[in-house]
């Protein structure tokens, strides 16, 4: 067995009054490509924020790379693309190049300046999302989908071991979604990168992922993709209400 990169044990979480996650336990091994599925408001983004240490669990334990999240300091091993690309300061005067470069901040560490050869890294990262021609454009003047691709490049530039992506393809057109998932699959297969992906386009990712987790405030299913395929639509309906359907 490969070693678990992420372990959650009986993790619960609530915002001030709303209970969001209840007794979540699962683990993710090195090299896994996990898709988290679930309806709106089921707590997917919140679960990712717990893994990133942006919010703290009410109870239970989270381990990253074998270490308790509270004492885990190698955050540069984790790359993150958040759900809303409009969470950033959109009037901010920065070029695409500057934004992507800022993804190196944690990897370099405090007191170290961004090296001169960073430009090559920026170009590579932007090439992998097909945005290399936009280097010197102002970030606020790109379309939502283009911005999202820049943020993906910002996550990739630090070469994280674990990629956490919250609906990264929202606003990206069909063709680019395909090539984006192809790129993820390559990262996963050839570089053994572990990937956790929240998504609603199950069908597009289905032949690239290795694992599936079904979330609706609690984990209803977590396992191999092939086992997920045997679940009946009836069961999915029980977990999610009526609106969810698997298409083959």
């Amino acid at each position, binding site marked *: 067995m490969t070693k678990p990169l992420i372990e959650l044990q009986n993790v619960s979480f609530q915002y001030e009054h709303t209970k969001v996650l209840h007794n979540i336990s699962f683990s993710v091994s090195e090299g896994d490509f996990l898709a988290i599925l679930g309806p709106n408001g089921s707590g997917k983004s919140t679960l990712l924020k717990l893994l990133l240490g942006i919010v703290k669990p009410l109870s239970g334990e989270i381990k990253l790379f074998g270490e308790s999240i509270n004492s885990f300091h190698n955050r540069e091993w984790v790359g993150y693309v958040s759900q809303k690309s409009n969470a950033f300061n959109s009037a901010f005067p*920065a070029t695409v190049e500057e934004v992507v470069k800022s993804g190196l901040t944690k990897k370099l560490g405090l007191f170290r300046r961004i090296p001169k050869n960073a430009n090559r890294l920026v170009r590579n990262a932007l090439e992998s999302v097909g945005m290399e021609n936009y280097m010197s454009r102002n970030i606020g003047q790109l379309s939502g989908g283009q911005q999202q691709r820049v943020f993906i490049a910002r996550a990739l530039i630090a070469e994280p071991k674990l990629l956490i992506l919250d609906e990264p393809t929202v606003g990206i057109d069909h063709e680019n979604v395909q090539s984006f998932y192809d790129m993820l699959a390559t990262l996963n297969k050839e570089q053994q990168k572990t990937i956790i992906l929240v998504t609603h386009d199950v069908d597009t990712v289905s032949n690239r992922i290795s694992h599936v987790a079904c979330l609706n405030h609690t984990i209803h299913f977590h396992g191999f993709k092939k086992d997920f395929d045997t679940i009946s639509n009836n069961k999915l309906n029980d977990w999610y209400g009526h609106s969810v359907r698997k298409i083959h």
Partner: protein
Amino acid sequence: MIEALLNYPLIQNAFLSGLIIGIIAPLLGVFIVVRRMSLIADALSHVTLAGIAGSLYLSQSVASLALLNPIYLGIVASVGGSILIERLRSLYKHYEELAIPIIMSAGIGLSAIFISLASGFSTDLMSYLFGSVSVVSRQDLIVISIIALVVFVFLFLFFKEMFVLSFDEEFAKATGLPSKWIHLLFIIVVALVIAASMRIVGILLVSSLITLPVATAMRISKGFKETILYSIIFGESAVIIGLISAFYLNLVPGGTIVITSIIILFFVILVKKLVLSLRVGRR
């Protein structure tokens, strides 16, 4: 002017201080503006005024403090105020901006009390309100230089962290940056710069020197470093033109510097419009 610069140390001091502030105020100003903290700068300048008025009152009433340079208590008040603002902001989590009027009123209230205790406005106080070309001492210049050094060291160490923090706070948290500490250091450095700037442009106009050059730069720049560069160019030009005209026309430099900044701002907006319409016309 050149003759005055060579012969009068007080004018030398004012000019050198002005040159330094023309760099550090817009430099930090870029971060202040993009983080939407301009009003905090305003609140802090009023707190600084309370420190200065308090110091002027003390030197009037306590003989042994007669020669106390008000800049020190001004700095203490400004830094104290910045820490208080941060405490209040975390206390009023959902109404963070309430911290600003609270601190601002406290600053103005205290200033008013000290001013009336010190029996009204003195010319000294006026020079702190609107700046001055002729009363900047060597000691002021030294304090301002030290503050500039602090600004440079801070940005040398934390430039990339400040960028991430200003651009995308959630990403900063996710990457595990010590955001809280860097933010606290930042606001203390801002407080220092406000205290340093008041000698030249005056308390009431400090925040203009911090924000106007940045507002101008943002009209024409695409990138962040570019914005910083233009802000410093515009800030420094405003200070130089403002100080020279204050000297020759016998005006307070706060007024001339800020009005110069405004003229530069409108000039840049106009030129940009013109260039754009020329381009459209050509097509």
